[in-house]
């Protein structure tokens, strides 16, 4: 990578302004095309048959009657998706999740699929498929699954990370541990110790757009896939590997995306649609119903967490310890490991120990959800921190400021921090007017901090200058939150032209080099770096072309505010050449002008946030109302402040839903009881106050503009901030998320009774 990513401290013209997003009009008028909006001539309708059992052996699948039904063009089972993963365990799990092989591992697990001329015929065909199941005992609760007597989900799993290699298989796939110092000694120095256990229920990202794709496999073995995804290059890799194709033969085009939040980071239905199309010889459209999205895509972990924190009278934490148990669904994951790394990351601790356990359960395969695993750990830690501050008699903000990590602090997950923003977010929260707003009867105020790593990754960008001087920017990171606007601002900034002259698109997989997906808050961080690099490469060519037009040495030409300028006394009479003038002459100076960039964006810089919220609790019913909510977060540099605020507000809104209402409810039969938005209640506008935001800008030293990722950290503090507010309003410590009305009422009544 011949590109210097270091922060330069430049003054900005375009970056930091708030123009209208290029995809805005299409989205508000309904013209924007999402996954299910794409159609191909002769396309078939795909439908998936799913297990009604939480855990069952598949003895036999008889598809003969379905195949004979007029209008059915293809029926597939796992036999049509053979194992081509070559020992790649993670890919094998994805394959098995797409289509069950020997066992159905959760209610909703795909066991067969059909492609038919219309939806009615496809549904009829599903009813004609006969699956002979041997129902097995199941377990859906994370704590129960760790019990030695729990039904074993995979007898080939032996717990990793134990000092002695286990001799018996287990539902615990891995134990991980982080920390430093001696917690036993640390607790010995504490005047106050808080020790509590917490639970959080499983939630779904709740994206409004279901998984949807159209697959078309040609008889020559090439294929097209139009799909709603957070990473079309990653989907291409997955699908090509699972179907035994060369990646270059599969062109994947990402549609607009109606939310992903981590849930669209690996394939679910896409290999099935491709296999159906390959068998039928026609395009196949496969759109999940909402029921299928809940039952068979990737919700977050359910958790069970024990916390112990000790502090001296002066408010200094002496030791902190956590044991975190996270459900993974029926496949191995590293979700508790992330929770164990992030749990105490906000604090300066001499003695800290976290242990994580990954637990298999008969639920859907866990997927990432915005700063995956961090919100649940923060809920437990920040609840205990609040309680400890109260026991000591300190203000909860002052207590956190006293113990906040800073530059030079050894993080709880290991490395020593560079420049970080937890202290400034706490100071900003302390002085925010929200902290002085009056509270009414039955209202409580809570606050909490949150941490997330942020990532970069492989990134490729093309910048093409048209002969009229307008600029096309082709990026490979899917736009999940306004990045086309932000990246256009970056291109305009570098080139010195107006934002309106830049048009950004998300290119398909055949038009651009590989890009990692849009996850880890990397979209704008990574693609802005690649856009800066591509623009600078284009400027180099623009200078060369201007030098040609003037017939002077290129070293005498500099680029200033969108113009080539000849430097030196001997060129004193030469006027400036605009980008438009150079572009217009490009046909006679060497042809098209473009800038390309391929790089690995690393050094994303960790991120911190502090949230404040006020909640009113009805003590008679346990219902809650969010009165005020404020987000303070470090953005490094807000490229488009409106969309940074949008990320902050979106994370807070999802956190409010998670904290107060959302949960997967399983019956004793292991079947999901509430796979729909009627019974799985995400917040709607009337549930939310105006979410106030405060952007802090502490530059990331590893990005030319100082940019940090902003998409995920905002969902880390809400569970805890709301739990602290509800606990203060209700007068009882809430330890179980979601704090739904029945749970709050039960806690209030237990407190009264006690």
């Amino acid at each position, binding site marked *: *990578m011949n590109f210097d990513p270091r922060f330069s401290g430049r003054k900005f013209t375009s970056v930091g302004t708030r123009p209208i997003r290029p995809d805005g009009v299409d989205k508000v008028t309904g013209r924007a095309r999402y996954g299910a909006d794409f159609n191909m001539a002769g396309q078939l309708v795909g439908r998936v048959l799913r297990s009604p059992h939480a855990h069952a052996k598949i003895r036999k699948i008889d598809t003969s009657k379905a195949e004979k039904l007029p209008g059915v063009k293809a029926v597939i089972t796992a036999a049509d998706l053979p194992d081509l993963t070559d020992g790649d365990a*993670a890919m094998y799990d994805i394959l098995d999740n797409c289509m069950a092989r020997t066992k159905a591992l959760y209610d909703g697990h795909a066991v067969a699929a059909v492609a038919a001329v219309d939806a009615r015929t496809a549904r009829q065909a599903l009813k004609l498929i006969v699956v002979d199941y041997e129902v097995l005992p199941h377990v859906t609760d994370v704590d129960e699954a760790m019990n030695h007597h729990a039904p074993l989900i995979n007898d080939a799993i032996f717990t*990793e*990370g134990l*000092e002695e290699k286990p001799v018996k298989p287990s539902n615990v796939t*891995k134990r*991980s*541990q*982080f920390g430093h110092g001696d917690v036993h000694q640390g607790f010995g120095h504490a005047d106050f110790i808080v020790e509590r256990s917490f639970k959080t229920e499983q939630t779904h*990202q709740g994206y409004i757009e279901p998984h949807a794709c159209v697959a078309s496999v040609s008889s020559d073995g090439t294929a097209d896939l139009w799909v709603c995804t957070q990473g079309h290059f990653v989907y291409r890799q997955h699908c090509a590997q699972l179907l035994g194709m060369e990646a270059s033969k599969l062109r994947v085009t990402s549609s607009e995306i109606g939310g992903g*939040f*981590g*849930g669209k*980071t690996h394939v679910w239905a896409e290999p099935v649609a491709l296999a159906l199309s390959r068998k039928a010889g026609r395009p196949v459209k496969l759109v999940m119903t909402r029921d299928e999205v809940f039952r068979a895509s990737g919700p977050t972990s359910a958790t069970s967490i024990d916390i112990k924190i000790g502090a001296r009278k002066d408010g200094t934490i002496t030791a902190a310890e956590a044991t975190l148990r996270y459900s993974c669904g029926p496949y191995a994951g*590293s979700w508790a*490991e*992330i929770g164990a*790394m992030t749990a105490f990351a906000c604090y300066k601790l001499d003695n800290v120990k976290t242990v994580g356990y990954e637990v298999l359960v008969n639920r859907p395969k866990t997927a*990432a*959800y*915005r*700063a*995956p695993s961090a919100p649940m750990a923060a809920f437990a830690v920040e609840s205990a921190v609040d309680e400890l501050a109260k026991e000591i008699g300190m203000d909860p903000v002052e207590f956190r400021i006293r113990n906040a990590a800073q530059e030079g602090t050894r*993080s709880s*997950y*290991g*490395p*020593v*921090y*560079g420049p970080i923003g937890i202290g400034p977010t706490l100071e900003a929260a302390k002085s925010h007017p929200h902290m002085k707003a009056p509270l009414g009867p039955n209202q409580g105020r809570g606050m909490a901090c949150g941490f997330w*790593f*942020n*990532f*970069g*990754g*492989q990134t490729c960008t093309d910048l093409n200058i048209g002969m009229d001087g307008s600029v096309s920017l082709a990026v490979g990171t899917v736009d999940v939150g306004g990045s086309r606007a932000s990246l256009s601002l970056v291109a305009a900034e570098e080139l010195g032209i107006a934002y309106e002259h830049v048009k950004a698109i998300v290119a398909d997989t055949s038009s651009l080099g590989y890009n990692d997906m849009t*996850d*880890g*808050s*990397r979209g704008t961080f990574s693609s802005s770096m690649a856009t800066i690099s591509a623009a600078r490469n284009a400027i180099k060519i623009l200078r060369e072309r201007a030098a040609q037009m003037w017939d002077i040495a290129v070293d005498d030409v500099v680029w200033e505010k969108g113009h080539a300028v000849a430097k030196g006394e001997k060129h004193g009479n030469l006027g400036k050449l605009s980008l438009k003038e150079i572009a217009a002459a490009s046909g006679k100076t060497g042809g098209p002008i473009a800038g390309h960039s391929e790089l*690995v964006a*690393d*050094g*994303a*810089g*960790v991120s911190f946030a502090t949230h404040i919220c006020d909640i009113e609790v009805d003590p008679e019913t346990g219902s809650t109302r969010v009165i005020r909510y404020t987000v303070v977060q470090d953005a490094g540099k807000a490229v488009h402040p409106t969309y940074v605020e949008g990320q902050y507000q979106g994370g807070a809104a999802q956190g409010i839903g998670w904290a107060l209402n959302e949960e997967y409810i399983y019956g004793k039969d292991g079947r999901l009881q509430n796979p729909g938005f009627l019974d799985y209640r995400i917040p709607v506008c009337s549930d939310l106050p105006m979410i106030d935001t405060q952007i802090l800008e502490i530059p990331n030293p*590893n990005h030319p503009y100082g940019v940090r990722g902003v998409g*995920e950290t905002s969902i880390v503090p809400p569970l805890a901030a709301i739990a602290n507010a509800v606990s203060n309003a209700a007068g009882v410590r809430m330890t179980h998320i979601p704090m739904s009305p029945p749970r709050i009422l039960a806690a209030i009544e237990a407190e009264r009774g006690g």
Partner: protein
Amino acid sequence: MVEVTLWGALGQLAGGQSKVEIEAKDIRELFRKLAEQYPAFEPLIDRGIAVAIDGTIYRDTWSKELPQGAEIFLMPRLAGG
């Protein structure tokens, strides 16, 4: 010679050591030499290991130099949402 701190699972595979010393100029050489000295690391390196250099986390820039005296910390490569 740089001192490399290992996270728990990696330390177990290195016979219980939490720190190892390696002669390496960049991340690529570090991983190559770690795999030579500790063959059990290889599957984890294949799966993905992140390297924190003075607190900044690098996941893919294997050409990143390891400055003398820098704090080098190996971490699991994590997923994002």
